[in-house]
């Protein structure tokens, strides 16, 4: 049992923290968000230069063979700096599908572009009525010759507008909520029949609603077993949830630091408002919420090595519950303790709150995951 970072992990943390301290203050972020597509290609290039985009990939695929802990370190740093670049969609999600399900050819074709920063991805999963159920899929992929024809509508695809390639879940067999008959397909974003409607999201990221009309792809588009893709989807979704937990911990950590700093300096009635016990106790409760979330983020990170998929899922779901509860409390109270200034677009604290809020509603909210753990027989069982 060991919660310390290894020497290499510590260096990784220093390097990404250093990079973001230099290149990602609040003003820089505003500038990046105004660039075409809503994020900075130059910054993305810097991440690539430092090897951060290649971390989780096997050395044989040109990566660094890093594990879940390294992803946690990166995501926490991205959360602290409120990074809007598509690391989750590209490296964690698309990278996850390729690592766990990709053929040698698919890996060779797509991973180098991720690592060198030239290509980004989007995960087209959410449908109008699927909400958080990953198996609830209406979009179809029908066999045509050797390849597939994809039809359907996907919503809130993060980085969907800018992505070079979309990872699409589609039904190859069965009814809307069948757990088998789901495939995962790599679709070039400029394929004929792909229509995108892009928009900014509440937290300053970018997403798109995407329609697939008779989109033809080759046999090599399917990642893994096109008739039984759910276990792969769940595995990658668990990695994405784990990454989101770490990102939230980073964002909460910085929110609390900024809030404590604020109440130490803001004066009312002739004294710093942080001298009032009601505010001190609120801040202490925020600290408790943060540390409990941090513990569960670590738990989920370490659960990625669990061999039993049910155990892994339950651990990740439990982490998402704790993080969801904590982020709501820390996020809301950060605004409260900042007072009026916390309500303004101009102050950074509100942007943490918005990102945290969106994290809760990504890939299953607190109630959804609580129900999952509960229906699975609880956490002690």
């Amino acid at each position, binding site marked *: 049992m060991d*919660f310390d970072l290894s020497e290499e992990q510590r260096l990784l943390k220093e390097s990404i923290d250093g990079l973001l301290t230099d290149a990602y203050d609040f003003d820089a972020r505003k500038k990046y968000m105004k660039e075409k597509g809503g994020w900075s290609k130059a910054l993305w290039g810097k991440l690539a230069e430092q090897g951060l985009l290649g971390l989780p990939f096997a050395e044989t695929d040109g990566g660094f063979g890093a594990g879940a*802990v390294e992803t946690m370190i990166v995501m926490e740093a991205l959360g602290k700096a409120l990074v809007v670049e598509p690391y989750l969609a590209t490296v964690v999600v698309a990278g996850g599908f390729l690592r766990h399900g990709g053929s040698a050819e698919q890996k060779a074709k797509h991973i180098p572009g991720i690592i060198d920063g030239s290509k980004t991805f989007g995960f087209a999963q959410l449908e109008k009525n699927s909400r958080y159920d990953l198996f609830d899929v209406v979009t179809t992929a029908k066999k045509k010759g050797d390849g597939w024809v994809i039809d359907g509508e996907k919503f809130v695809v993060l980085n969907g507008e800018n992505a070079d390639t979309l990872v699409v879940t589609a039904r190859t067999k069965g009814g809307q909520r069948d757990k088998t008959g789901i495939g995962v397909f790599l679709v070039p974003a400029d394929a004929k029949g792909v229509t995108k409607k892009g928009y900014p999201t509440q937290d300053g990221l970018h997403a798109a609603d995407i329609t697939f009309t008779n989109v033809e792809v080759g046999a090599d588009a399917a990642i893994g077993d096109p008739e039984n893709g759910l276990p792969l989807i769940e595995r990658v979704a668990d990695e994405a949830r784990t990454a989101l937990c770490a990102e939230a911990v980073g964002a909460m950590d910085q929110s609390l630091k900024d809030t404590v700093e604020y109440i130490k300096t803001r004066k009312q009635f002739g004294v710093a408002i942080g001298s009032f016990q009601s505010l*001190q106790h609120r801040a202490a409760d925020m600290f408790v919420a943060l540390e409990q*979330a941090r513990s*569960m983020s*670590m*738990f989920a990170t370490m659960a990625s090595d669990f061999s039993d998929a049910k155990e892994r899922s339950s651990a990740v779901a439990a982490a998402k519950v704790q993080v969801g509860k904590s982020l709501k409390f820390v996020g809301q109270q950060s605004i409260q303790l900042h007072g009026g200034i916390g309500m303004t677009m101009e102050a950074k604290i509100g942007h943490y709150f918005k990102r945290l809020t969106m994290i809760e509603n990504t890939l299953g909210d607190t109630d959804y995951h*609580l129900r999952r753990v509960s229906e699975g027989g609880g956490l002690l069982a």
Partner: protein
Amino acid sequence: MDLAFTKEEIAFREEVREFFKNNVPPETRRKLQEGRHLSKDEMVTWWRILNKKGWGVTHWPKEYGGTGWTTVQHYIFNEELQSYPAPQPLAFGVSMVGPVIYTFGNEKQKKEYLPRIANVDDWWCQGFSEPGSGSDLASLKTTAERKGDKWIINGQKTWTTLAQHADMIFCLCRTDKNAKKQMGISFIVFSMKSKGVTVRPIQTIDGGHEVNEVFFDDVEVPYENLIGEENKGWDYAKFLLGNERTGIARVGVSKERLRRIRALASKVESGGRPVIEDPAFREKLTACEIELKALELTQLRVVADEGKHGKGKPNPASSVLKIKGSEIQQTTTELLMEIIGPFAAPYDEHGDAGSNESMDWTAQIAPSYFNNRKVSIYGGSNEIQRNIISKAVLGL
């Protein structure tokens, strides 16, 4: 970063489990599972079994009978002890006064007291709180006046846990009335059988008798019963209170209770189905399990940190343990209350369910719920814990 226990640690856990299985008296275990009070004999019998095995004072230095275990082994031992469940060692002797004596006491005191603490030949109680000194402990008024080779002690202590069983007390007494309040306090130990000591029971809202008022009326105590230096008692008290950071979360206790809740909720029916099949109840239970898992991890972080970097600088997360640990313990007793519903009502003043055999397990549920309100009050109330976090961790 690695969550898994090593092979050696897993083997150790098996050894501990095996020992408990073979050595904890079944009746003692059953009573603990049902939240009943144990008799003095039952507790002492078990502690002597532990001490014979060499596990009576596990965390003491080896020369005084400790085990030399790693922090992880200590964690495993406590966890297994709490979740078996078996009675935990008498904190007042083993975790509180013992470490003060081996750290600050003289050789004679070490020789005289430590072996008797380990074997519970003396039952110790703690003389800290007073009627006017709760969270503001340093305002205490009990005095010890030096007269030749004696102390003359006068005053009153309260909330003295299990003083009715006690042979010895360690007491904070004011020895310099002119000094600033923290500076004039001394740490003195003496026999509860001394002339002038009166113990009066306090009945708590659960109907039980755990705590007492203790009165000192010109109690004569040998001067040599002073531990450490005169007027340095506050330092020793702080040392003592800071010593048991991780045990306070009582993760094992809550784990055992959550297991019991699942078992009972599968048995008891409501609305024509077992309570556990009610989604609202089940989600509350699950939420509590998740909170406990988070706390367990937080505790492991503190334990691992202490193992690596020593106890000198406490991990900031340690202040979370008391707050969350007590909240979770209280939630578990609320869940038990929900399971039994209207059958919580019957009151048995002896704390035993002789009157209704079929509802045997329900007898202690309401009292345990009432009694557990104490856990967010004692050991530095949760509000004091928040003060500590805001000052020591957040720098407010």
